[in-house]
């Protein structure tokens, strides 16, 4: 009985509790990937609501207040054209999830993976299972994703220092379409978080919002 009550409490405390709302009626919405493997898929919890708010404010877009959460083997995966995944730890895709994700990309889906420091190795490994023949390639600074709305002539902005490495934007293309955009050593998610969470300077947070808007608009136009 205690275990059952504990389960009920856990469900009620589900961090991204927007599944009850059908976000698909909005012009744009994001689904956060609830992946397996032990990594904190739920990290940077205020980042996506802040991004959605910025889209509403700056581009008058009709968006929900929060993101949806989806597992890769959910039937509803194909209702969400934009997936976001982040975290610090391990990621693991089951064979069914690998197959589903591949099909998702074939059907027009887009994934933004933002390394929150620590998911690089496992992300590369798992995404390699989805596209065994295609590898992550670094996008040139001339790529439209850096210019579609806001100009980033030097590529990704550096939001949060970890190892002092330069930020890199990688992509996987399927039939000439960018289906995976992987932001590494920048931590845009941190920059999107509310000011009190990481105490990032305002201009860094602005850069993060601008880059995130570029990623959203790119996914909406290509």
């Amino acid at each position: 009985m205690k275990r059952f009550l504990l389960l009920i409490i856990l469900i009620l405390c589900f961090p991204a509790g927007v599944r009850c709302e059908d976000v698909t009626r909005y012009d744009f919405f994001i689904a956060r990937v609830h992946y397996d493997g032990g990594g904190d898929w739920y990290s940077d919890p205020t980042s996506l609501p802040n991004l959605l708010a910025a889209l509403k404010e700056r581009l008058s877009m009709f968006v929900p207040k929060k993101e949806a959460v989806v597992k890769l083997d959910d039937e509803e995966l194909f209702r969400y054209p934009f997936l976001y995944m982040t975290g610090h730890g391990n990621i693991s895709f089951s064979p069914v999830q690998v197959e589903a994700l591949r099909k998702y990309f074939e059907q027009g889906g887009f994934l933004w993976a933002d390394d929150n420091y620590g998911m690089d190795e496992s992300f590369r490994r798992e995404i390699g299972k989805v596209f065994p023949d295609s590898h992550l390639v670094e996008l040139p600074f001339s790529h439209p994703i850096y210019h579609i709305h806001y100009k980033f002539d030097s590529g990704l902005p550096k939001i949060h220092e970890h190892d002092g490495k330069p930020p890199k934007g990688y992509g996987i293309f399927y039939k000439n379409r960018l289906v995976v955009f992987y932001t590494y050593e920048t931590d845009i998610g941190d920059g999107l978080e509310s000011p009190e969470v990481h105490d990032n300077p305002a201009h860094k947070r602005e850069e993060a919002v601008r880059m995130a808007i570029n990623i959203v608009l790119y996914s909406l136009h290509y």
Partner: protein
Amino acid sequence: MSYLIVITALFVMITGTLLYALIRSRLSLKKFFVLLSLRLFFAGILIWLMTDPMITFLTTHTKPQKIYLLIDQSQSMTIRDTENSNLSRLEQIGEILFGSSLKALRSSENVLFEIVGIGDTLRRSIQPPLEPIAYQSNIIENVSQFMESIQGDKSALVYVVSDGCSTDKDFGLSEIPSEIPVNTISVGNPDDQVDCMIHSVRAPSEVDIEEPIDFYIRIGEQKMPPETNLLVSVLDEESKVIAQTEVVSPVKDEILLSYQPNVPGLHQYSITVEARDIVEPYKENNIYKTAVLVEKKDVRVMLIGKPAWDMAFLLRALRDIRNVRLSVYNVVGDTSGNIFSLQAASEQAVSEVLDQLSDQDVLILCNAPAGIFSFPDIQRIERFVEIKGGGLWFIGGESSLGSGRFIGSQLTKLLPVFLIDNDYIYQPYRVVPAQTSRSHPVCSGFTDNLDSNQIPPLTGINLVEKAKPVAETFLKAQLSSGGQQFPLFSVMNYGKGKTAVFAGKGFYRWYMEGGLRPGSRDILTTFVLNVISWIVSPTDRSLMHVRFPSVKYILGEKVHTEAVVLDTTYSPASSSWVRGNLVGPGGFERPIDFVPIPGEQSGFSATFLPPQPGKYYLTITGVRSDGNETTVETGFYVIPSSEEFGRLAANIDLLKDIADATGGTYYDLEKFDAFLKSYKPQAVKEKVKVTRMAVDYPFILMALLGMIIAEWVIRIREGLN
């Protein structure tokens, strides 16, 4: 019958013999044999005549001398060989044949003249004046055909008058029947002259309006002094130079001249070469004509909309379609008057963006509100559809149609549906293909064989009041629980253009989820392709499909075309027929017969041969059983072959060879003139074998009558009657 003849003969002979046997004693032996012989001869001749005997004999007969003049009427006969005269080769012949010196000969009863034109084909019994109407010069082929046609008339005199510039391909001298000699007469200067020519031109038959036309030109030269400057030009239909270059002789490589047409349509271009500071005797081969169809192959689509998944997947579907060129603008507010250009990555005024509308084919407003457009903007959009023939496609959403405050806007005139205020609701309406008009091109591969359960439901809908009476609705929306069906996708013709409304939202799911079920497919791309293709297709061709394989034909090449007549449900129309009318250069006009294509309902085809070079218009009219007609006009060019212009000096060797091969005589034109002047026409005597029925000869009947009379005279004198 024959046994009756035998019986009759035997009866006459036996009765005659018996009769005379009875009275034998009353006659002398001599008279008895005379009478018996007369009777037997009479009976024998009678019996012979009853077998329809024929009598054949030879007789001598006189007739006029037949003289056939085969005259080359090809284009090389227009050449004026300056050394000889100012007359063209054909005019020189005309002067001899129709001048006063031959008048007596031609009017003689003893001569029968026939002038036959040769070139591309045989033209029997032509009358003066001689015209250079042939665009090929198949001399050997034509002479062979003619000689076969007069075989048996061995007294005929045949003269071929030509410059010997031949385009024969598959015919050799051995194919000319040699029973009757062929005499040949050459006209024109046989010596090669200084000459430059357009040897060949490679150019596309069709180009996109934004592509340049590349003319790859090969120059031919003959005795051209080195370092001669050659001016190579491309001229339009009004003889205006549109591209030009100067090269130096000898020119071994192809020359490339390019021209950006800018104006759609079927155009003819002339490619010319001119030698600077050199007088060319031959100018006829300095020009080459070709035709190019300039059309908008690419479909230009301007999309203005709010950044959203529907717009995103609409863009993906559009990019999946070949030949679509996109201009995308984001609406960033409801009334700002500015939109964000994706290409320029900057904001632009709406009015500035609509300046480019004249270059577009389709304008898509994807959940774009009325507030961003000023009154002049709306007027410009209306003109784009009504006058220019552009397409306007509204896609629904909470900022579109009634909820986008388009009621009261001039654009509502263009829409195929009636709007109501605040029409957008968030409801998962399902999509129901309309049962009618499934064979419309918009439904091809989509609703014609798609179960409505395969189409993911909408995320919201603009509940439009109803479709206009002149509109057609192909998709409807209905709640899963049933109830009223609302027009979802409707189309309408407006002026020269077309408009469409998709009064819903959520078709991004058609792309994402359309291909998930086994056997299903990406239905959004199919749908968008159909809609865009239909919007940009000519209105007159939606109810009659016309297949016209080319816009450029070489003279002598047959033109084949096919037409399929559809009824108002876009299915093959029953009991229909097709007629055609061809209008060509110089007032040429004639009806074209279309015949049914076996096995293809309402399919008709026609094959015809345009008679001369130039621009033609073919009007095809499909007539349905109710008298309703659809007319489609298509144009094409017929270009003359320039093969005989490769070497323009008279080829007297060919003419000598023809004469040698058939036992004829070769003349040059002056000798032939002298020959004709001195020719004394004489009637031809010939022995004729005459065969007639014996009964037609009067002397046989006279002989019979004589025998009867002689017998009766003898009998009366002998007292035997």
